[in-house]
């Protein structure tokens, strides 16, 4: 099989002189030297290949390191946070960063650093849970649509089209306005709006896998349909969903922060990053540190998932490379 990714790479001679700075080569190596897909090796070699590509991708590793740091912060929050995230020192409110309070105190005198650490729990939970929920429902719908086909396929996919007719955040806002504001409802809303994307990806993936020889072979030897779906088709269709899911966590965290910022998600005094921004908004001109740090936390966390997601996509499926 020829490697379509190679077509994206322009010939070396097109590179203008002076741009071959050796210091740059490692970080851009995933662009310049894609490993070819090898299909003639042992069964798990594709995965090993992908892992090797991922390990070489410095940006993806950077993303992974960022995510691991946030996970550590979330898991060990009680040990790492110097203060109680909801304890208020009213007299010291809006105090700028100092040696005792690294990121200062917020508008009611809570330690921002401690709140950010506890906030990592909420952001990661929302990101992971909403994406998992969306993937489970979306992939199921997409797999059924792709596998069964016919009117069921039409019905499911037209429903998904209708949901896709709404800009994601707007639909999430509409769902929250129906369910009522709150952390869990926000999570459901974010999961709900991402279902169509996973359904589409899964359907497309199932459609292509369904026609491959090993599925035809399984059918020919009389393997029951459900078993073919579970054992043959789904595991082989999951890669694109996994990539979309990693990038989806980034979007989910961003959307959750936006909804909480608008007052539709986490309620005070929950140390959610978006609602920290929303509550501290009024202090932006007098005590900007209240707003700066939560924003940086959101950005860094989202960046981590975007970097890893990009890297995963390049490693798992070089054809999708951007």
């Amino acid at each position, binding site marked *: 099989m020829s490697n379509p990714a190679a077509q994206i790479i322009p010939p070396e001679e097109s*590179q203008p002189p002076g741009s071959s700075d050796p210091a740059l080569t490692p970080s851009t190596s995933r662009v310049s030297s894609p490993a070819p897909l090898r299909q003639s090796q042992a069964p798990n070699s594709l995965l090993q290949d992908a892992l090797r590509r991922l390990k070489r991708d410095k940006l993806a590793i950077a993303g992974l390191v960022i995510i691991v740091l946030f996970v550590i912060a979330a898991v060990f929050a009680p040990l790492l946070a110097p203060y109680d995230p909801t304890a208020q020192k009213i007299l010291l409110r809006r105090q700028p960063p100092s040696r005792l309070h690294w990121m200062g105190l917020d508008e009611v005198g809570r330690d921002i650093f401690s709140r950010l650490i506890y906030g990592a729990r909420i952001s990661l939970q929302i990101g992971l849970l909403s994406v998992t929920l969306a993937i489970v429902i979306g992939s199921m719908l997409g797999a059924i649509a792709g596998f069964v086909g016919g009117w069921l396929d039409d019905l499911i996919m037209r429903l998904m089209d209708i949901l896709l007719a709404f800009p994601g955040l707007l639909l999430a806002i509409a769902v929250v306005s129906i369910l009522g504001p709150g952390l869990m409802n926000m999570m459901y809303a974010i999961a709900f709006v991402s279902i169509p994307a996973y359904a589409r990806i899964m359907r497309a993936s199932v459609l292509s896998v369904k026609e491959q020889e090993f599925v035809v072979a399984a059918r020919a030897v009389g393997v029951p349909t459900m078993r073919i779906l579970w054992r043959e088709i789904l595991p082989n269709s999951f890669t694109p969903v996994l990539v979309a899911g990693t990038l989806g966590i980034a979007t989910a965290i961003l959307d959750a922060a936006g909804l909480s910022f608008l007052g539709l998600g986490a309620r005070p005094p929950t140390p959610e990053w978006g609602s920290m921004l929303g509550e501290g908004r009024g202090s932006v001109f007098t005590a900007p540190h209240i707003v700066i740090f939560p924003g940086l936390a959101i950005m860094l966390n989202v960046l981590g998932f975007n970097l890893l997601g990009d890297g995963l996509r390049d490693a798992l499926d070089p054809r999708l490379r*951007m």
Partner: protein
Amino acid sequence: MTRYIIQRLLLLIPVLLGISLVTFGMLRLIPGDPARIMLGEHATAESIARFRESMGLDDPIPVQYVRYLGRLVRGDLGRSIARQEWVTVELAQRLPATIELSLGAMLIASIFGISAGVVAAYKHNSLFDLGTMVGALIGVSVPVFWLGLMLSYVFGFKLHWLPPSARLTVGIQLQTIPAAYNIHLTGGLGSVAMSILNFLSNLYVFDSIVTGNPDALIDSLKHLVLPSVALSTIPMSIIARITRSSLLEVLGMDYIRTARAKGQHERVVLMVHAMKNALLPITTVLGLQFGTLLAGAILTETIFSWPGMGRLVVERILARDYPTVQGAVLVIAVLFVLLNLVVDISYAYLDPRIRYG
């Protein structure tokens, strides 16, 4: 081509019906009595009964839906509860602000996104390329509302370069187009024309140009800069990435090598030969991003006190003014779908393979 457009328009009908079903369902899915929720805890049983009667909430759901559709076809979105104003009137006042903001953001995003993408592709693997790609990744990771706050703090509050919020400085007068030119139209068509003129007058930049008001023009442009920049980051990053990858792909093709071998000037190769084909995916992304801007505007407008559709939705959700929320969601979704349709059609126009594929 005409057949393709008709086909696409027909496919629009089920989607539009679906959208109407969703916005209709919004109100009915709220747990509890929507009348009580909208009128508040202190409403009397009498006023609730009257409200249910006037909204037709006591009829069977299918009857309610058909009546809702009938009203939609006539352009009737109901009355807002918070303002006691026709929803269409409120939307007509707010939509131009969002359009102006989206156009501003799109302009910034396309100019900088495409240029950065072109240079990054041309100087593939250079420091600029790496910087653009890392910058684009940061761009899609930045929370728009946070960036907006930071921009308004730095450029509005600290440096005083640009106004930190609102659309126009208090005291700057802006006449509507009909008022400036003394236009009074009556009758069926006349009133439609008047509504269109009033709608256009709410595009402040356009209005200040048409009415010849340089002060208002400069002022409204100044107010437009920060929110547009904030809103443009995500589409700009995506456009830069797509431009780069699409151009890289084209630059690797044989006909480019031929053009170079013929001794064509590099600039001609890049801008004429390569860009022509690289533009296809860029056009799609441009159109799709324009649609998502409508959603991004929700957060940006809230930060910059920009009186557009997004801010309206947020305000009215918190005020439980469901008719307005329904109307705004419907209009945004329909605009989103129409924009995507325009993109698809222009794509088919640019690339004949799609029409006959």
